[in-house]
């Protein structure tokens, strides 16, 4: 267009990117009509399970204890299966599997506000009014989901929500949110399922008329999304969401009581937390394993209740840590016995850590300057603690490198085989480096 050409480099540059952004829609390719190919699904698919600790967990009481310090609190450290690595006494089961896990003890992340911290930890970027960055699950969905043509269920599942946004990668990579019971919002009723064929036949007639009337791409795009939704509704891969459902073809079994028990505190320990009880964390992780097994590359599981401004020690020992301990150890054990651990990266983080200083309500407040993340599986060099804080836990130790979430996500990208020089383009044409240009943590690469 003549007028357009006068617009100069910048404008054209923008428009090209816009055209690309628009073109990502048809690429949303859940609609393989090919019957799910069991062999393809069982190929060594890499995946990531993120355990998100909503509220900001006191890592000084979990992963980086400070015995002897005024900030040390009430808990003692115990040895783990990994020589030289100690964690909280309230994490005994996790301690047993620690050869397959690692701690990064020198996180220093600046953002100590819930909203900002959640954004920063999930994306690697600080919030910025110019652009909405994708949460890392969306990045993985974008990079790996597209290559899994046999996958009929969404490539980024968030159990419990709160996982952030797909940003400039587009809605098809937004987290697909389910409850811890695996229930999908607005799944069809039995009656609805029965009527579906008739309804879809009528729908096809109406829709194709409108598409033929030549009004641009939007009517076709609508049809594609409906196809995906129908594929999802009728996919046998839906069995992955239901821990009590078996599907031989997919290699999924109805989970036994034994397996369920792996993920959950023994009855009586830590209150009413059996399956379907107050704690959905264990069940969510078990579902996460099934989803990963089915080929979903990123699953995020949310465990809340960490904003412990008061009564931190009782809450941890009585409530949070028993759930967390069994959840982590159950997942590691289960993944390992199924030979999936080396292909599944586990990440554990929250918005920030909590103050080393114990406040007058026996609580700990927000603290981002020196805290821990946990990472494991994924073929990484596990069984170690990377980095350190000082004696009182108030800052990263002098001889230790400080890490950002971008470094954690770069490590994950490495483990998943996503090239680190990948660059995405924001809606406004700005190049965005994968994981904000972070560097994989050297020690973990083995």
């Amino acid at each position, binding site marked *: *267009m003549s007028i357009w050409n006068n617009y100069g480099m910048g404008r054209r540059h923008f428009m090209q990117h816009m055209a690309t952004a628009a073109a990502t829609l048809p690429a949303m390719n859940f609609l393989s009509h090919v019957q799910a190919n069991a062999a393809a699904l069982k190929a060594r698919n890499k995946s990531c399970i993120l355990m998100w600790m909503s509220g900001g967990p006191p890592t000084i009481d979990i992963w980086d204890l400070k015995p002897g310090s005024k900030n040390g609190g009430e808990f003692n450290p115990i040895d783990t299966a990994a020589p030289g690595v100690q964690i909280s006494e309230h994490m005994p089961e996790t301690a047993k599997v620690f050869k397959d896990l690692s701690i990064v003890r020198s996180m220093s992340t600046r953002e100590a506000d819930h909203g900002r911290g959640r954004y920063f930890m999930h994306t690697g970027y600080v*919030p910025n009014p110019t652009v909405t960055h994708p949460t890392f699950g969306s990045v993985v969905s974008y990079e790996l989901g597209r290559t899994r043509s046999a996958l009929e269920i969404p490539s980024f599942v968030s159990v419990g929500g709160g996982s952030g946004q797909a940003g400039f990668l587009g809605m098809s990579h937004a987290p697909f*949110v389910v409850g811890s019971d695996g229930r999908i919002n607005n799944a069809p009723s039995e009656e609805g399922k029965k009527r579906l064929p008739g309804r879809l036949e*009528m729908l096809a007639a109406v829709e194709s008329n409108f598409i033929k009337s030549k009004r641009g791409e939007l009517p076709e795009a*609508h049809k594609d999304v409906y196809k995906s939704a129908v594929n999802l509704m009728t996919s046998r891969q839906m069995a992955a969401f239901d821990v009590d459902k078996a599907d031989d073809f997919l290699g999924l079994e109805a989970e036994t009581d034994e397996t369920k028990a792996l993920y959950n505190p023994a009855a009586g320990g830590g209150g009413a937390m059996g399956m379907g009880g107050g704690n959905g964390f264990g069940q969510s992780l078990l579902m996460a394993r099934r989803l990963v097994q089915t080929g979903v590359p990123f699953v995020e599981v949310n465990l809340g209740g960490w904003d412990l401004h008061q009564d931190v020690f009782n809450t941890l020992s009585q409530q949070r840590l028993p759930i967390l301990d069994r959840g982590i150890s159950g997942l590691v054990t289960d993944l390992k016995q199924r030979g999936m651990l080396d292909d599944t990266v586990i990440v554990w983080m929250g918005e920030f850590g909590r103050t080393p200083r114990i406040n007058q309500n026996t609580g700990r407040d927000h603290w981002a300057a020196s805290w821990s993340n946990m990472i494991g599986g994924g073929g990484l060099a596990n069984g170690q603690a990377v980095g350190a804080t000082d004696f009182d836990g108030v800052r990263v130790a002098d001889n230790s490198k400080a890490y950002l979430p971008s470094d954690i996500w770069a490590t994950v990208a490495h483990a998943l085989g996503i090239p680190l020089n990948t660059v995405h383009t924001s809606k406004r044409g700005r190049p965005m480096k994968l994981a904000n240009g972070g560097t994989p943590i050297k020690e973990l690469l083995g």
Partner: protein
Amino acid sequence: MSPLPQWIQRISGVTLSVSVFAAGVATCNIGFGADAAELSIVEFIDANIQQAYEDNEIKPSAVADDGEWVRRVYLDIVGRIPTLEEAKRYLSDDSPRKKSVLIGELLDSQDYVRNFTTIWTNNCVGRRTPRRVSRSGMEKFFREAFAKNRPWNDIVVDLVTGEGHFEENGAVNYTLAQMQMPDEAVQLTAMTTKMFLGMQVQCTQCHNHPFNNWQQSQFWEFNSFFRQVRKIEHRKVDPKTGRRVDDFSEVVTRDFSGPVYFEKRSGLMQVAFPIYMGKKVDPNAFDRRKEFGKLLVAADNGETPLIAKAFVNRIWGQFFGYGFTRPVDDMGPHNPASHPEVLDRLAAEFVKSDYDIKAMIGWIANSTPYSLTSRFGEDNTVDNPSAGEMPLFSHMYIKSMQAEQLYDSLISATNAHKAGKGGWEAQESQRRRWMQQFVAAFDTDENDEATTFNGTIPQALMMMNSELIEKAVNADRGSFLFETFSKPGKDSEKLQDLYLAALSRRPSRGELGKAQRMISAYGARGKVYAYQDLFWALLNSNEFICVH
């Protein structure tokens, strides 16, 4: 085949065409100033846009038929499709002026107020109401503003300078919503310039603008107007439980004078003072936002204030799917407008009308480009902005319904507003509940263009299986389907009503035949069953969810 577009007939009576304009003004004895045009504003829009067709060697699509147009104008002005009765009434109206009459009626309706209140509440506080922000306070502010047709400049000044209790002065919720994070009013600065001035200065928070000469300092100069803003989140003791709970939020002005500091890329610290477009304000001004408000509306040297241009561009974009710039809120030397004369004239007339919002919407909705079909013609396939081309407005661009439009249209299609129980409050709360689910399923990016389909699987599932849709296709006594089905008359008439209710048009003969064949194939399962499924299909169709 369509008749010759109206505007040609209209314009030929006044002057010849825009190209005559520059050369031929002398003969018409009018100066080429703001009031040059003997052409009315609508004629000016038509002529100018027509000129661009000729320059680009394209021909516009035909004028939309009545069904297509009436559905569009309802959706754009009142945020929902016409009901069955409304559609029928318009289709059977023979008056040559029926378009402009309807536009006037819609602008004077309660639904216009409600629609624009929804849109601007979303613009100002988002769909997901942030914590400690009063959505109802914000809605009340806009409801009053649009009901009284308050001048836009007054509305903007209230939003930008508001102070006080978040329900007593609902305007402050805009500011509260932009102060969710402790960020030295960066978000508030960026949003204010973007939303009301159509300027995206936020990149210059960190560096000079790459494509124009905006300096980093400019961002912080804007920012320094907002640094006196403080929000207070009051708490109170709940007498029942004895616990402290959230009370009201409030915006106050705090003492702050002197410069703000920012870091250059080089690491150098710099200072910035409150300056708006080269106009300095005394840094000791008691309330800098009040000064900012005055500068926003000042029209020195006959210049059109940016707030007028930004608003006109946004409304045009709302009606056409694309504004004169893309995105609509990024205007500036780096991003020239597609039809600068139309934009300038509209903005100038808007100011002259004392920022009369309804009048301005009327000009846009009465224009010929707005009346064209959304179908591509033979000779305008290049006019395809979704492929990155500059919009020429030679056919209507198809848009995807916004969440609220979808909900309200489902209600209209099924006459649920009539059967609705519990009155306005109950209906509003039902709508709010549905919107929450919708927002959760959507993760809506407020800035997504309406012209791309952002539907997701959760959305499709909601449309296919939710309680709302089950209610819509319910055939119990008193329901829309029951009424339609049980009244006397031929099947073909009843089917027509279903099409009219959902799509505001009658089915073609082919569609009718196909529908009847499918219905008879239902056999023993019964006709009601078949009607339900057909109506389900119509409501789930791309034609339903598109504004076209």
